[in-house]
């Protein structure tokens, strides 16, 4: 008897406690979303502020306008933007080709030095990459690819070392069944034909992931770009150029311009990213799980 009376009550209790915990979680998620979005909303609002170019104690502009965007247009910013865009575009194509070559070879072929090669590259990654900058700068300077001509120099450096980033796509290739290759080999395909006709059509997510990350990386690269452009405005990318605006001597006049530049840089990249988000998620999760 006791049981039959109790059980509906217990049921109600379970449902209620779940409802409470879900409400709490919803609230937490809203708070998290606000924290994560707030700086970007602030940047956006401040980019339209006209009354003062420096930091102020409020967020919503008192005078709205496009002044900052206009002065952005008249500064070196378009040049930097173009530089970065060219780098990103070339990098996206070339790096994808190289990474795919590398990871396909390491995933599908069993050659003598394969394990040694992979271990070697792992160990190579333990060295702080920054060290190589010193020498690369001097070498690039000797062949004239620094300062004003930093763009081709940067592209060269990015592409040349991109083979090291094969982990994620190799992890993806590893998940495609090997019997597909074997069936194709029996069917008479060469290894090249297998790559072109079987593997690549099946690798759309990872190809898009690689293109996306290769395209996005140059927008954020700061240290290398700064080293190679070496204070020469014509060779800077957006990160290096805009960094200077926040230096002590410029921040008082360029702060809102920085915000406007940030908006111009972030909006296209973010839209592209959100469109291809699905593939990015696949790549990140796959890559991390495979290690």
């Amino acid at each position: 008897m006791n049981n039959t009376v109790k059980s509906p009550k217990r049921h109600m209790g379970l449902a209620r406690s779940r409802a409470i915990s879900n409400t709490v979680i919803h609230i937490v998620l809203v708070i998290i979303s606000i924290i994560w979005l707030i700086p970007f909303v602030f940047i956006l609002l401040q980019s339209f502020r006209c009354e003062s170019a420096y930091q102020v104690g409020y967020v919503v502009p008192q005078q709205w306008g496009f002044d900052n965007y206009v002065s952005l247009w008249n500064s070196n910013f378009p040049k930097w933007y173009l530089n970065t865009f060219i780098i990103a575009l070339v990098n996206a194509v070339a790096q994808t080709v190289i990474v795919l070559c590398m990871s396909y070879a390491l995933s599908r072929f069993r050659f003598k030095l394969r394990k040694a090669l992979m271990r070697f590259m792992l160990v190579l990654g333990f060295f702080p990459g920054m060290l190589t900058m010193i020498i690369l700068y001097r070498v690039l300077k000797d062949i004239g690819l620094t300062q004003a001509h930093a763009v081709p120099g940067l592209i060269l450096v990015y592409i040349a070392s991109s083979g090291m980033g094969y982990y994620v796509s190799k992890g993806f290739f590893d998940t495609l069944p090997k019997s597909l290759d074997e069936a194709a080999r029996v069917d008479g395909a060469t290894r090249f034909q297998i790559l072109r006709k079987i593997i690549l059509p099946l690798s759309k997510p990872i190809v898009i992931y690689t293109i996306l990350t290769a395209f996005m990386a140059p927008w954020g690269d700061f240290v290398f770009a700064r080293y190679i452009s070496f204070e020469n405005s014509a060779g800077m990318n957006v990160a290096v150029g805009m960094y200077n605006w926040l230096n002590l001597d410029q921040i008082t006049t360029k702060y809102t311009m920085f915000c406007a530049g940030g908006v111009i840089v972030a909006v296209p990249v973010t839209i592209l990213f959100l469109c291809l988000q699905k593939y990015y998620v696949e790549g990140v999760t796959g890559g991390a799980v495979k290690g």
Partner: protein
Amino acid sequence: MASVVLKGVKKIYGGNVVAVHDFDLEIKDKEFVVFVGPSGCGKSTTLRMIAGLEDISDGTVEIDGEVVNDLQPKDRNIAMVFQNYALYPHMTVYDNIAFSLRLQKMPEDVIYDKVTNAAEILGITDYLTRKPRALSGGQRQRVAIGRAMVRDSKVFLMDEPLSNLDAKLRNQMRAEIILLRQKLNTTFIYVTHDQTEAMTLGDRIVIMKDGYIKQVGTPTEVFEMPDNLFVAEFIGAPKMNIMKTGLVREGDKYYVTPFGARIEVTGEKGARLAEKGVGSREILLGVRPEHIVLGKEGENSIPCVLEVNEMMGSELHLHVYTEDGTRLIVRVPTVDLDEGDRRDLVQGKKLFITFAGKVMHFFDPVSEENLLV
């Protein structure tokens, strides 16, 4: 339409792990040979060496009289069906089957005829425009076979093609492979771990264990005269009962003495024992479950206790144990028992079993070889 000859073929992994030891086999033109054995016995590795998907560590493989060791799979003129079908997921059924023909640069109208013809034979014409993921397991298997069929190759290799199918479909596909074989009329090498498949499909069966061939023979040969204990236990279901016992020679007559019983070896088996001059000794006695019958107490019967009674429909599988705990299986056709007897067969019931003298197999307890071979 070719013979396949393997001479001393070896597979060694990483310098010291031997997966296949000196594999010698001659497969005649148009023969259907089945490699069978438990997993890890080297049967798939051997097949893959014939296909060219694994390097051959030592020895030679000849197809149609030509040594193919150094040839790529595509140059060996073989077709292969994989265990997990290995269909190209991004291509339609038609494109899957046409893939190898297109690589050969065959004209599209010829390809069309060949593909539709193969699809007709396999009954997959309706699915030609679908992608593999929209097909059931059986249909995928048919596409995989179709892909191999259109290549008109000399040798047809199949690597556990039915093991991913459910039991019912497997029986059906087995029958279809027999029909297919009649239509294609080419050399088949078929790998499986299922002895039923091996028995029903093969002209000859190659039974392997730990990289060694344990026996090669027709289904009848391996069933009736297993070379060794392993083959005896592997072929036939439920598996053969093995009893450690004595063989007694009295003049020209032989007796076995399992668990106090005394049964005379009769027929050809007795004659063969005498021919070989076998004396009284310890042996492992093998008797298949279907050869054991229920009997009455007596000199030639073994007392035992019923542990489990499995009703299989047309027959009963009785799991019994003898006085020293040896477990035996007895297969009793249901028709041989009347209602009352059957109901009587409950756990704990004392039974007496016996078997005829001509159905026994004798193995050496140490070498596990058949004494009569």
